């Protein structure tokens, strides 16, 4: 395994997607929690905790998509064609959800409608992302570098389980975030909501992990052949440990809930990467086949290595500016 441009870019895009999943994950999670919190003032407060940062969070989605287009054009064109319906459904859901941030506070008479748009948009977007993840793992029907499947190939029992896992995972990230940001009774309410979510997520992860190993023999071999079994066993073991720790934290801790959930996300994400490597359009096309020429990859790498550290710095600054508990006045 030599570090070349193709490998660097597949890793960079993986990082961008993970950044998206965790950052937009918790603000989508707030929308997923909306149906359980009826009080308009509390909803406003929940939204205020992410209003200054959601935009930057969602930009990672554009970087993931744009990076795939630039670095792996073949994979981009195949995946987008195969996921036509879930991609468009997700985008339309994100349209509703995104404008709700501005519209909710501008609207006198229709606040409930924008609350619904925010919540439904968040849930649908999360579910579509999960379903696409599932369909991605199951594989895309490709012949001669053309997509040959049907428009509903992405919908399967497995992808439904993955959708459910992502929705509940984002909800937990959102709860973890809000437990940090809120105080008193409302914090207690959030803790109560988190408990069933942890159980649901644990069950979902178990099902998805077991099903994954039955999808392709290669996936099972990656995990269970020697010596991989020995090296990779810590991933499920640590994940299980984190789930127990999370169960404890949602009852007693304030700041660790979010961090532990992030840890679980990271391990699951790493698990998927290990399962799929080196394929970028499973089960047939590896990332080297799909890659753009080296001069495109190197040109982008110059910009990425200068700009990404700067982006991380000012993003961190923006989070720091809006740190701490959210008072009643909010930012609006």
């Amino acid at each position, binding site marked *: 395994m030599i570090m070349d441009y193709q490998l660097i870019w597949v890793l960079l895009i993986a990082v961008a997607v993970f950044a998206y999943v965790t950052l937009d994950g918790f603000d989508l999670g707030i929308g997923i929690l909306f149906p359980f919190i009826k009080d308009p003032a509390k909803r406003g407060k929940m939204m205020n905790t992410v*209003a*200054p*940062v959601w*935009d*930057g969070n*969602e*930009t990672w989605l*554009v*970087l993931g*998509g*744009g*990076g795939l*287009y*630039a*670095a792996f*054009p*073949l994979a*981009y*064109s195949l*995946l*987008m*064609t195969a*996921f*036509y*319906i879930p*991609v*468009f459904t997700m*985008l*339309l859901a*994100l*349209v*509703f959800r*995104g*404008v709700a*941030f*501005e*519209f909710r506070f*501008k609207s006198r008479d*229709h606040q409930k409608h924008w609350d619904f748009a925010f919540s439904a948009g968040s849930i649908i977007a999360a579910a579509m992302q999960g379903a696409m993840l599932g369909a991605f793992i199951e594989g895309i029907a490709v012949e001669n570098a*053309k*997509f040959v499947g049907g*428009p509903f190939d992405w919908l399967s029992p497995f992808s439904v389980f993955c959708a459910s896992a992502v929705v509940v995972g984002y909800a937990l990230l959102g709860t973890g975030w809000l437990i940090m940001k809120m105080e008193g009774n409302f914090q207690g309410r959030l803790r109560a909501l988190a408990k069933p979510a942890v159980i649901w997520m644990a069950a979902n992860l178990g099902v998805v992990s077991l099903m994954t190993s039955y999808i392709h023999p290669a996936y099972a071999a990656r995990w269970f052949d020697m010596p991989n079994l020995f090296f990779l066993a810590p991933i499920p073991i640590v994940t299980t440990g984190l789930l127990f720790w999370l169960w404890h934290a949602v009852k007693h801790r304030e700041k660790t809930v979010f961090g532990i959930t992030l840890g679980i996300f990271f391990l699951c994400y790493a698990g998927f990467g290990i399962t799929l490597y080196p394929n970028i359009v499973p089960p047939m096309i590896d990332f080297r086949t799909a890659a*753009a*020429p080296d*001069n*495109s990859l190197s*040109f*982008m790498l110059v*910009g*990425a290595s200068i*700009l*990404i550290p700067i*982006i991380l710095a*000012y*993003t961190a600054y*923006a989070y720091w*500016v*809006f740190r701490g508990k959210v008072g009643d006045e909010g*930012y*609006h």
Partner: protein
Amino acid sequence: MFDPDILARVQFAFTISFHIIFPSFTIGLASYLFVLEALWLRTRDDTYLALYKFWLKIFALAFGMGVVSGIVMSYQFGTNWGPFSEFTGSVLGPLLAYEVLSAFFLEAGFLGIMLFGLNRVGPKLHFTATTMVAIGTLFSAFWILSANSWMQTPTGHIIENGRAVVQSWWDVIFNPSFPYRLVHMVLAAFLTTALVVGAVGAWHLLRDRENRAARIMFSMAMWMAAIVAPIQIVAGDMHGLNTLEHQPAKVAAMEGHFETQNGAPLILFGWPDMAAEETKYAVEIPKLGSMILTHDWEGRITGLKDFAPEDRPNATIVFWTFRIMVGLGILMALLGIVSLFARWRKSLYSCTWLHRFALIMGPSGFIAILAGWFTTEIGRQPWVVYGLMRTSEAGSPVAPTAIAGSLAAFVIVYAIVFGVGTAYIIRAMNKDPRFAHSPKGEVLRAGSRPISDPTIPTAGE
């Protein structure tokens, strides 16, 4: 009817037409906010702060809609235009990646501080945030116009295994039409914003001539119109010459010329008939067409008949969209000149018909941008990448029903979301700008205080 190519083109045209409205407004508005905050920091005159907050609310709404419609665009290349993505990915992809890295993150990263952070970070750092957002919008324009210009006048690449591969990034980014397109588009964005600001200023002046915030808005906007509209006409002319050099078929369609001729007339109006290969009912001025395009009365202008029928853009549409853009551009310049005259006559704030004129011209920038966009994009057809890839070869193998279904969903969703968003923007514009930074501004009404009261701009402080 259910031709997937046509459906995919209609969908792209629909979504990008909606999208382009918002960035072209926010590019100008971000720079305007930068100027307002700079003036406030310099003079500490609270009217500037009130104006800043007034336009910031509108900026937030427009920016939000621009972001969500833009995310759609970044995925549509792949869903509907797979073969195009594959062919162009290694050329256009990096340009768009640079746009995301240098512009989108900058805008999004500092937008939160700009919108909610004034009391948290203080005026100086807040001004830095405003500056970063304004710079971000201009970076964004740079990269997206570079990508679009490459599709119009591709250079710096070779074709390898049926894909475009870059030979020189410099030639790709600074392709022949890019400088003209960038200048024309950024000026259009500034002008569009100035016309909106001018119309809002005029609206409030029509209600109350003494409204100081409205006076400042109107005056600044009219300076912009007076200076930028004439410059834009010159820039547009230079862009036209560039197009004649690189895309003669587009110019022939814009001008409605079917026959190649020396000393070609300028066709003012007419109906280019693609089937009959002639422009019917033409009202023309002899030899002026050659003069404008070649700067020579006897200059040679290539007609559409010199191009194979399958290589001709649709002249009927392009001829008219071009005239709408130019006509509105002339009216904008006229507004600017009239305002200079009114300023000289000291009637800038009292001339009712000028205010009405400015009010009517408020949306004209958006219409001109759309008309210009249609001219350049439809004029490029039948090519998606000029001379390299036909639009008919660029579409994904997606079921027509899927495209039709997603198109219908877009029409419904955009109608709701952008209809409501526009209503909120208009409502925000209708509020009295003097009270924009007053916590109790909501309950105050224009005229609720004596107009001579000097404390009005700082009401609520």
